[in-house]
């Protein structure tokens, strides 16, 4: 019974903060195409890297926008990010839609949301969720 190691129960649940976060769509992102199956093609403007000054910027032309394709499941999640719903409520809705348990849904939603955050499609506001 002696346990000098750090056990699971001594670690904080790392997902708690994220559950109360609110997700916002990037207002600058433009919907290029919406397919009948629900999938969406988005164009997110990119920022010019700081090192691209003349004369380099005359030669190297970085893309002005980055395209992101969302499959029907991803697109429904993206649409649900209205700036009011917390991640927890998104997780609940996703679980009900796809017959998943809470943590199955949480892992699916948060990993997908993380990839969208990286691509600049979404932004996160931590700690502003509804009580």
């Amino acid at each position, binding site marked *: 019974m002696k*346990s000098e190691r750090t056990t699971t129960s001594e670690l904080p649940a790392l997902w708690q903060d994220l559950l109360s976060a609110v997700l916002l769509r990037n207002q600058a992102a433009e919907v290029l195409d919406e397919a009948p199956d629900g999938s969406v093609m988005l164009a997110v403007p990119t920022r010019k890297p700081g090192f691209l000054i003349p004369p380099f910027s005359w030669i190297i032309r970085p893309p002005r926008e980055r395209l992101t394709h969302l499959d029907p499941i991803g697109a429904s999640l993206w649409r649900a990010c209205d700036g009011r719903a917390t991640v927890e409520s998104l997780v609940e809705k996703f679980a009900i839609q*796809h017959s*998943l*348990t809470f943590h199955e*849904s949480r892992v699916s939603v948060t990993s997908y949301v993380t990839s969208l955050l990286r691509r600049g499609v979404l932004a996160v506001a931590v700690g502003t969720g509804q009580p």
Partner: protein
Amino acid sequence: MIDWIWRQIGVSLPPDWEMLQFSRESKRGRCAFADRRRFRFELNWHAFAAEPDFDRMMTDYASTLDANWHDIQSLRCAGWPGLTGRREHEIVSRFGRYFPLIGVLVEAVVIHPETRDSELESRILGSIRPVPVDPEGYQRWRTFGMDLKVPASFSFAESQVQPARCGLLFQSDKGPDRWIFRRYGMLKSWLKTPLREWLESQTDPAVRYRRLESGLIHTIPVERVHGEWRPRGLLLKKGLYAASAWIDPRDQRLYHVQCITSKSNHAFHPRERAEKIMASCPEFFSLPKPSIGK
């Protein structure tokens, strides 16, 4: 309460507590369960040939906790000796017990968010029990929505647990014995073919003389494949093969079991009906209730 069986240890837990961490190790390991906000229960095991000196262990243990815990008290709950104390904003209770039937020392950790729920603690501790190998020689596992029967000599070799996709592999030390149990969700988004075709696509080319059959588990349609396991290669061992797949309408999950069994374990082989060694447990699936505050 949902009945879990892991490494011959059975425990009943609230339906919304999910296993988020687990260990496949037989000698020493841990499983951790969480509700939607935090870890709530931890099961640790350590194989011992004989019962350890409990009193001394408890004294040693209490002294290691002094720095981080407050209000430490010794207590006994449902026959389990243990300690309880406050750690920051939560109450943590730790209990230990030796099960001579399976030769394992079990430590149960119950975490209470604010105040200690002694009734819940007592129900959980009262449900922890050894689940020894049955008279037919099978060990039982009940986890991730599946109730499994595996020969006692097989070891838990691999696992893949992802959202809506779970797979567990048990195998023997020698020979081609491999029993694989899988459970899939979100079928509407990926299962585009009839179940029979899907099952055939999952069957290895090493399965010869294969026969496909349809049947029923009570009222649930099941597809089956059986044949002989004959991999190409002179030194590769042969065996029997049986697989079954079905969709349980109660939880909308696809269950798939595959058994490759060597000659030495023929007695355990489920023959044509692989579903005899795996049952679906839809009670593991519970939709989250809408959150009401925090």
